[in-house]
């Protein structure tokens, strides 16, 4: 049997060191973002940076614990862990403390815990377990529905808190399902629907002048253009059977969708969400209201220049121009104090991490390990894309943390466990066959 001292022996050191680097960089940037002259020590436990140090140390304890576990533990306990997470999500709705309008937190004394962070882990394990238990491919409508239900339960519970940002994270599992055989068209349709949504919203506010003093709304114009394209396609493929019906169907769906966007936007989304989307699309511009965060965040990042203003020299950072800077907007500190070089290093490190995870996932002999690897990569990617995207005005403001950087114990713990569970599986890949 393996000796205990060997638990670190087969682990992937690239991931370990990238993780360590990111965590330490995060700590330094939290220090800069919340720096207080009266509490200059980075170890001061009354400050965020002191607390983050505790989260980091305890995270390494978690790494050690996870690596100690028997690899079969994860697959055996996938559903129980999932169930526990769901219980916590229900619990937080009842016993949780409301912070900033959302019941997302359990608080004990000075510390608080966010079960939705852990729920990603539980859901990843459960989905992995379910997908790997399927004999062959990921096919059949019932199979898919079951997989979606695994995602929908936590998503629904989190929506009740409500914490829209964390709900959206579950959309990232589409990459996992795609890798396991979900049709690529679904990915494309998803992408197309998003593009149409944006286009329809943009055109909703535009009218075009026609000759003879006629005016036409942008959306109508768009439908007409789509109609013309459909006719052209019809002409080109007129010999194919059923093309007429298919084209009419596609046209009908698009037209309905475009007009439906208004309804969705106006009647489903909340007003602050509408504003955030409008800001992003440049339809609205209110730098004192909905656009304030992004405006300030871009000023902070944009003023960093190539080399940055230097550690603790970021004026926007120091003087609290960017709200939520130690948590969701931590990337601003990187951009302002470390400049383009800092941003480049951080993004490249994350990219190395993502690539490494995917590459390692593909070398797994066990389907469970592979699928789990994709879950990890997808979750990280989604966080990364949305979080950094919103700080530079490319994504709507959705409050989700930047993995390893954002201040907070729950997310750091959850991301650590999520990542090192995979590292553990990989280190044991020679011993797992299932």
């Amino acid at each position, binding site marked *: 049997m393996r000796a205990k001292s060997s638990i670190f022996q087969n682990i992937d050191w690239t991931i370990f060191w990238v993780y360590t680097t990111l965590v330490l960089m995060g700590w330094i940037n939290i220090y800069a973002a919340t720096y207080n002259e009266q509490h200059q020590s980075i170890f001061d436990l009354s400050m965020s940076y002191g607390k983050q140090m505790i989260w980091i140390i305890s995270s390494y304890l978690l790494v050690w614990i996870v690596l100690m576990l028997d690899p079969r533990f994860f697959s055996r306990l996938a559903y129980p862990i999932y169930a526990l997470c769901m219980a916590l999500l229900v619990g937080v709705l009842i016993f949780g403390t409301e912070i900033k309008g959302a019941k997302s937190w359990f608080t004990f004394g000075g510390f608080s815990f966010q079960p939705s962070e852990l729920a990603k882990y539980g859901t990843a394990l459960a989905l992995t377990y379910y997908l790997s238990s399927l004999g062959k*491919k990921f096919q059949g409508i019932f199979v898919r529905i079951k997989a979606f239900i695994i995602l929908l339960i936590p998503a629904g519970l989190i929506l009740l808190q409500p914490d829209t940002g964390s709900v959206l994270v579950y959309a990232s599992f589409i*990459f996992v399902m*795609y*890798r*396991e*055989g979900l049709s*690529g068209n679904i990915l494309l349709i998803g992408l197309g629907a998003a593009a149409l949504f944006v286009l329809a919203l943009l055109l909703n506010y535009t009218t075009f002048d026609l000759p003879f003093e006629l005016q036409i709304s942008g959306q109508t114009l768009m439908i007409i253009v789509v109609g013309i394209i459909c006719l052209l396609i019809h002409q080109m493929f007129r010999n194919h059977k059923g093309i007429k019906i298919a084209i009419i169907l596609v046209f009908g769906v698009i037209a309905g969708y475009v007009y439906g966007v208004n309804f969705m936007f106006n009647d489903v989304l909340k007003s602050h969400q509408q504003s955030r989307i409008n800001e992003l699309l440049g339809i609205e511009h209110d730098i004192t209201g909905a656009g304030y965060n992004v405006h300030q965040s*871009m*000023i*902070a*990042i*944009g*003023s*960093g*220049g*190539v080399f940055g203003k230097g550690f603790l020299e970021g*004026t*926007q950072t*120091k*003087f*609290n*121009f960017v709200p939520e800077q130690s948590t969701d907007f931590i990337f601003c500190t990187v*951009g302002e104090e470390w*400049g*383009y070089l800092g*941003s*480049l290093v951080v*993004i*490249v490190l*994350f*990219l190395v991490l*993502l*690539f490494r995870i*995917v590459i390692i*996932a*593909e070398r797994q002999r066990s389907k469970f390990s592979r699928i789990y690897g*994709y879950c990890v*990569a997808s979750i990280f*990617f989604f966080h*990364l*894309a949305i979080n*950094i*995207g919103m700080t*530079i*005005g*490319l994504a709507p403001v959705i409050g989700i943390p930047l993995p390893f950087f954002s201040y907070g114990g729950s997310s750091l713990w959850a991301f650590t466990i999520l990542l090192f569970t995979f590292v553990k599986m990989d280190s044991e890949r020679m011993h797992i066959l299932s």
Partner: protein
Amino acid sequence: MKPFEDRKFVILGIFLTIALIFLGRLFFIQVIDDSYQMSANNQTLRTITQYPVRGLIYDRNKQLLVYNEAAYDLMVVPSKVSDFDTSSFCQLLGISDSAFVTRLKKARKYSRYRPSVFEKQIPASQWALVSERLYKYNGFHGEKRTLRKYPKATSAHILGYISEVGNSDIAKDSYYKSGDYIGKRGLEKEYESVLRGTRGKKILMVDVHNRIKGNYRNGLYDSLPIAGKNLICSIDRDLQALGELLMQGKRGSIVAIEPSTGEILAMISAPSYDPNLLVGRPRSKNYQMLQQNDSLNPLFNRTINAMYRPGSIFKIVQALVALDEGVITQDTRFQCNRGIIGCHGSHTYDELVGAIQHSCNPYFYQVYKRLIQRGDNTSVFKDANMGLQTWQERVKLFGFGVQLKTDLPGLKMGLVPTPEFYNKWYGENRWAFSTIYSNSIGEGELQVVPIQMANLAAIIANKGYYYQPHLIKSIGEDSVKRPEFTQKFDTEVDPKYFEPIVKAMFKVVNESGGTARKARMDSIIVCGKTGTVQNDPWPDHSVFMAFAPMENPKIAVAVYVEYSDYGGTWAAPISSLMIEQYLTGEIKRKDKQKRITNASFLEIYEGKK
């Protein structure tokens, strides 16, 4: 090959694409677009301008002419304004409720987070009251400014005034920023660059709540303000004040010069105004009043901007030029033939001194004729042309018809007619002495600025030379005078020809038959020459120039009183009082002073100014 393994490339491709989009976007906002840098500076850096103290101006005896007084601008930061009792606030400031609303709106429009001026230039006396209650009104604070203040309401034309810079000032000199003050007239304008000093600045960092967080880069880019230099003006404040008093109720001017240096001792343009009117909040209202609603045009500085015919005082110049050109000697006599040109008094056949003493017009008619028609050419027209050419060159050496390089902006040149002038007017070879003889007695086309008349008195006192009349003795504490003011200008007239002139001017004042007996003093010997400039059918301008004492003169003075009477009646006694004040420090002849201060000649004659 595991099923769908190729799909990892799609997924990795998406990861890579997003990362590249982010890096591209970051490159754009961090490296290429510098507007974010500017926004960041706008938000976090506050440049506090530190205004330098404007230089003070003293008179020649170190008495203050103008100093600075603190005033306060009430500033408002709209975002900090919270609800309070507006009516008591408005009462405190003396403004209406609606003015409060519009001003706040205007400030808000400028910026919600930055201070803008709510009420300008609250005098220090009122500020004490405002400041002690300001704690009740969030969002308001005071900012110190300085206002010009004049201890004696005197020397308005000399000192000029300052006012807020306009767009054209800013366009001309980028030093100025909206809200700055700049000298607009007088010494304030001429010595602007010396008086204003240099602004300092302090760059402070502020946080999101506009709280000051310290110096930017530890003050690396900060600078201290450098105070403007003080000026020492050559004016004698008491003499100036007396001159203004004597000229009350009159139009005209007094200019007094120290002959040995060219320093101007007094410079009065009447009517004048109280310089304190053009300071602080009532400034624009008062300015409008002085500018438009006052037909006497008190802002007009006659001493340097008005042009007059000089009258008989110009006979002195004719005499000196004629002597030096050798067309007469001091013994030359002419019949007082009153057929061509009128005269006064009982003389009939004077030599030069007598002719000056009695101001004999026919005498100088003949003198001028000798200067113009010198018989150098057979054509009387060409001869006159040549004669006038020489004459005007010599006259210009006396500072007439040229711009004196004094330190007041906008000085007029006056006019000494040249051959070209008459050629243009009458046509070439269409004029001769007979056309232009009025110049002989200082009438005709001659135009003279009062300061040039005083300069003439100084030239005679100096027996032949002058320094540019100027107002500033010293810039700063180190007695620096502009180099052009220490340069001697010579009239090129032999000093010996001044003897008979001085003798004649002595007689004008001191002997019976002189035209300026009213200028005589027991203790001091005054030399002078009257002028009476005709304005038919209106009253004459009264003109007098003088210097004193006769030996080693200390003061040269010229007085011009519009539409009053003979030169000897008003201008001469005014000159005499000025001399008495300057040389003895007081006026003993109070009755004489009273006679003059009581006189008024302000009636406006149609078609004349």
